[in-house]
């Protein structure tokens, strides 16, 4: 074959390796290897024998392999005749020295196999053995990973141990595998947990064995794999949390069976998996922790809190001590979460939980119920006052600025307090109700539960039912609060404010029913009614004076952008109010919910020609950058900042007015109640305002009368070009 010969066989081996390792399992690799050998050696017959059987044969129909003949030839190769082939030359090489396998090649005719072919076939056999070991290893890994899955899925320990022994038996290919664990009470004996290959008698004999006898006991004592000196057997220790608590024993009935390093490795792998399954008890405890703790803050969760509360209540009933539950809700958490992002929200909750824990005694329990709701269980409190004292301490602790994502965030929390109400559920509910009362009375406060709060809940339910019918019963009325030029107090516009004239409750304020309407989806219909009515009313005054109408748009309306645009267009058309006279007021919080969506919505409104105002400006966390992206025309300063103005603090009002000026936005001050505030606002550069100082909201008729009586109007302010 010339100079290429050496390279030829090397190349053939490389190709052979690539081929056999491309198969998915041992059986097809054997078949492919036989076929390849036949092609390369131009032989008609190739047979691979292993463990006393023909594993693959080429050159015969599948149902006509002369097994006996091939086995004989593999054991004692000779030149001769083969069934179906006639006179031929036969070449045999060993496959696995310790397994007695062979590769047999027969070629028709009388041409001898060359030395080179002989070497090549030997090389192929080596490659094949390597590949078969690889498959064996793969099979081992598959077995082990299925065991791991069982452990993770918390299969019964007995099933896992059974899978361990059957896996070891399959992979090591031996007759008997047993797994014993030390008797937890009497460590001198081991109890049979799982086995394969034992007959009933053998099973009875090994059900309980003294540890100081036998190979298994030796493996436990030595805490390592041990081989038997007398029999074909080996044993490996099984551990629980690192301590040997049992053993797996493998034994063979095959004469002359010796365990290779590979076999030992396999046994150790299975022993380790048995150990894993046992150590799982510890994992159960970990899982237990996870089941009862909030993953974000690692505080106890509601389930654990309730459990501890129940325990506490039963203790209280025995010892006559007192306990209290504090229900805490972070004020405006949703705004922070929406405007700063969820990661910041999470960070904030973690910081809140740290401050909470730092504010209570070690024996008390702080838990997170989910969202921004926390609960604190105070045991052995002297009285209600002591609980209130803790609440104040928590409120104080939360008041200090939090550094979230590199910026200072100011938060507050509302806390409801309830003393033991006889059951965990009732106590938590009471604290929850008290928290709502605290929130409704202004944020950053605490409230103690009173039975009357239950009445409030019932009332809310009634109100909700009535609200569903508010439109059909025509119970809504509009009031208008004038907006004035701060300089001359002339009325330049009015904000429409809805009131509910309830048949039994009287006039219900929007603060009481608008949030309810938003929750119950009545808001869309309600918003449409307000728009239509307000436009109709104000349009009818235009002959008296060209007034600007401000209408509040709820976050719920803003989310249904298309409907809102349609409603606005319809209201303008029906009333004939010029679009530039309509100002839609949207709260900063609502704007920040989904910036991209909101911008699209605002643009569609702007296309109608209306003006847009940001209501309650300064209460959210909107960045300047975001503000710049909104197509807005004016800012309304929240009443809280105007209140500060009266107290001498003009910092924030000044900032907002300057911001308006730099973005070319008109600024309207809300809640102006004193002359001093009016003057201060004028000094700061704010031109418009509304508030009790000028006029309270009034029915449409009253305002109309006022307009008819008042002097001639000033021209409407226009935005600078």
């Amino acid at each position, binding site marked *: *074959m*010339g*100079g*290429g*010969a050496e*390279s*030829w066989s090397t*190349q*053939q*081996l*490389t*190709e*052979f390796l*690539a081929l056999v390792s491309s198969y998915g399992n041992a059986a097809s690799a054997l078949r492919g290897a036989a*076929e390849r050998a*036949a*092609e*390369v*050696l*131009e*032989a*008609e*017959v190739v047979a691979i024998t292993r463990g006393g059987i023909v594993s693959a044969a*080429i*050159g*015969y*129909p*599948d149902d*006509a392999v002369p097994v006996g003949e091939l086995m004989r030839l593999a054991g004692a190769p000779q030149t001769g005749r083969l069934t*179906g*082939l006639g006179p031929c030359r036969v070449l045999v090489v060993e496959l696995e020295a310790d397994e007695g396998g062979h590769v047999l090649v027969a*070629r*028709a*005719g009388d*041409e001898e196999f060359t030395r080179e072919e002989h070497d090549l076939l030997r090389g192929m056999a080596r490659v094949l053995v390597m590949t078969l070991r690889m498959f064996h290893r793969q099979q081992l890994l598959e077995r082990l990973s299925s065991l791991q899955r069982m452990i993770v899925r918390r299969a019964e320990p007995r099933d896992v141990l059974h899978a361990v022994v059957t896996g070891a038996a399959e992979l090591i290919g031996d007759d008997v595998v047993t797994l014993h664990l030390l008797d937890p009470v009497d460590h001198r004996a081991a109890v049979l947990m799982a086995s394969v290959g034992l007959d009933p008698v053998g099973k009875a004999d090994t059900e309980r064995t003294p540890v100081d006898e036998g190979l298994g006991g030796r493996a436990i004592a030595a805490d390592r794999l041990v081989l038997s000196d007398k029999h074909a057997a080996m044993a490996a220790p099984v551990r629980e949390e690192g301590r040997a608590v049992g053993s797996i024993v493998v034994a063979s009935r095959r004469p002359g069976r010796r365990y290779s390093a590979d076999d030992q490795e396999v046994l150790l792998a299975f022993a380790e998996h048995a150990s894993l399954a046992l150590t799982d008890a510890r994992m159960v405890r970990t899982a237990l922790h996870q089941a009862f703790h909030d993953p974000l803050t690692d505080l106890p969760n509601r389930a654990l809190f309730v459990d501890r509360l129940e325990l506490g209540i039963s203790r209280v009933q025995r010892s006559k001590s007192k306990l209290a539950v504090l229900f805490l809700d972070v004020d405006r958490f949703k705004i922070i979460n929406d405007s700063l992002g969820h990661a910041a929200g999470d960070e904030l909750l973690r910081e809140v939980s740290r401050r909470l824990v730092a504010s209570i005694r070690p024996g008390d329990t702080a838990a997170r119920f989910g969202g921004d709701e926390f609960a604190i269980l105070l045991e052995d409190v002297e009285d209600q006052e002591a609980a209130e004292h803790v609440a104040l301490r928590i409120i104080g602790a939360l008041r200090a600025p939090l550094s979230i994502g590199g910026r200072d965030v100011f938060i507050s929390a509302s806390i409801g307090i309830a003393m033991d109400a006889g059951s965990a559920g009732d106590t938590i509910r009471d604290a929850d109700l008290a928290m709502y009362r605290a929130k409704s009375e202004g944020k950053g406060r605490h409230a103690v539960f009173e039975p009357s709060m239950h009445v409030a809940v019932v009332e809310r339910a009634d109100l909700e039912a009535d609200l569903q019918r508010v439109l059909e019963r025509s119970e809504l009325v509009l009031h208008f609060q004038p907006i004035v030029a701060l300089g001359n107090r002339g009325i330049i516009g009015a904000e429409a404010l809805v009131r509910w004239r309830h048949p039994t409750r009287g006039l219900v304020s929007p603060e009481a029913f608008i949030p309810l309407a938003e929750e119950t989806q009545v808001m869309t219909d309600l918003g449409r009614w307000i728009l239509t009515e307000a436009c109709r009313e104000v349009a009818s005054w235009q002959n008296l004076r060209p007034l600007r109408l401000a209408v509040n748009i709820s976050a719920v309306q803003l989310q249904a952008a298309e409907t809102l645009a349609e409603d606005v267009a319809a209201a303008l058309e029906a009333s004939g109010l010029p679009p530039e006279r309509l100002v839609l007021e949207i709260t900063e919080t609502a704007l920040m919910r989904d910036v991209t969506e909101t911008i699209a919505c605002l643009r569609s409104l702007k296309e109608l020609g209306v003006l847009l105002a940001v209501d309650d400006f300064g209460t959210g966390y909107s960045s300047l950058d975001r503000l710049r992206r909104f197509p807005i025309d004016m800012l309304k300063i929240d009443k809280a900042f105007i209140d500060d103005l009266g107290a001498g603090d003009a910092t924030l009002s000044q900032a907002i007015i300057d911001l308006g000026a730099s973005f070319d936005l008109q600024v309207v001050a809300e809640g102006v109640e004193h002359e001093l505030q009016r003057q201060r606002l004028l000094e700061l550069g704010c031109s418009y305002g509304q508030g009790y100082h000028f006029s309270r909201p009034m029915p449409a008729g009253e305002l109309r009368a006022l307009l008819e009586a008042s002097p001639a109007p000033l021209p409407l302010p226009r935005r600078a070009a």
Partner: protein
Amino acid sequence: MGDQSSATADPPAARQARWLGVGRSDHPDARSAGLHAADGALRGDDAKLVVVFCSDAYDLYELLAGVRERTGDVPLIGCSTAGELTTGGPGERSIVVTVLGGAGFTVSTRAAVTAPYSLREAGANVARAVHGVAGCEHRVLMLLSDGLAGDQQELVRGAYGVVGAQIPLVGGCAGDDLKLVRTFQLHDDRILSGAVVAAAIGSDAPLGIGVRHGWRRSGEPAVVTSSSRDRVLTLDHQPALDVYLDRLGAPPEARVPGPAFRQFTLMHPLGLARRRGEAQVRGIAGADFATRSLICIAPVPQGALTWFMDGDDASVLEATDAACSDALEALGDQPPLGMIAFDCSARRGILGSAIQAETDRLAQNAGGAPVAGFYTYGEIARTHGLSGFHNQTLVILAVG
């Protein structure tokens, strides 16, 4: 995926009657061509197998209907070709029908489509036709396949896995008059594509196979050091195209893409070294001049030892004689009933106008017996070892 037709022999008796007839027609009307060719081939009673080689220029349904009108439901296999041949010479746009008949023949046929199965599975499937000729003294499995459907050696491996070393494989890949678009295989009344059809032929008398290509080795062989299916990337660790051109001393005009290169490769295939007989030819379909690799007509296994081949009209014709004499040798002293030739369409390309000389040689070797054959897209012949797919080769089946 396959189906089977059988024509069983009468109980074996010494040397029962056997006959082989060949008919040909180039009648422009498909049905008439089918009728005439079948008429020509039906030399006796008790027809056992009809083998059709035809141009796909015909309306194959009409053509087949014409043949079947004469042969009835006698098992039929066949295929479209890149030209047909008989002792009368080579031809195109014609049909050649061979009929084997007489009690001394036993025949079983099968067909299988390759997709969605593998070629190997298809090969194994049709090879089960040999179960229908079990017990016959002399057997052969004739395969007519779609050479455009993939690696035909896989087909051979699949068939070998079923028939084993005892039964030789013979046949060829269907053609489509060198359009290389779609070939057809015929089985009884069906026209298939992307399929393989097979006839297991059992006979009282020997069946001989000859396989020769006539290419001569040139210079030293090289080891295929890198290849991927039909693409040879390196030879002796050097870019394959350069090694190929250098070793064969290609003239400058054949070293760049163009007709000169194509003609050069046609005359210089690769020859995979075999221990027995001639090197196994791998025709070169083209080259990737950017990567300097060779693209062959069939897979070239990495690690193979390959020769660079050389040939001319004389060597091609010498091979014709040699293939015939190899095939006829198996028949002993007995003259053949006829011969079936699977002749590579590339050989026809090499011989050009001298192609008539080849059919003359075939006729001469047949000694008056009929010869039927077609120009193929690849030849199948497994007589020893396992490799049974050839290129640019002539395969002869001599029927004793």
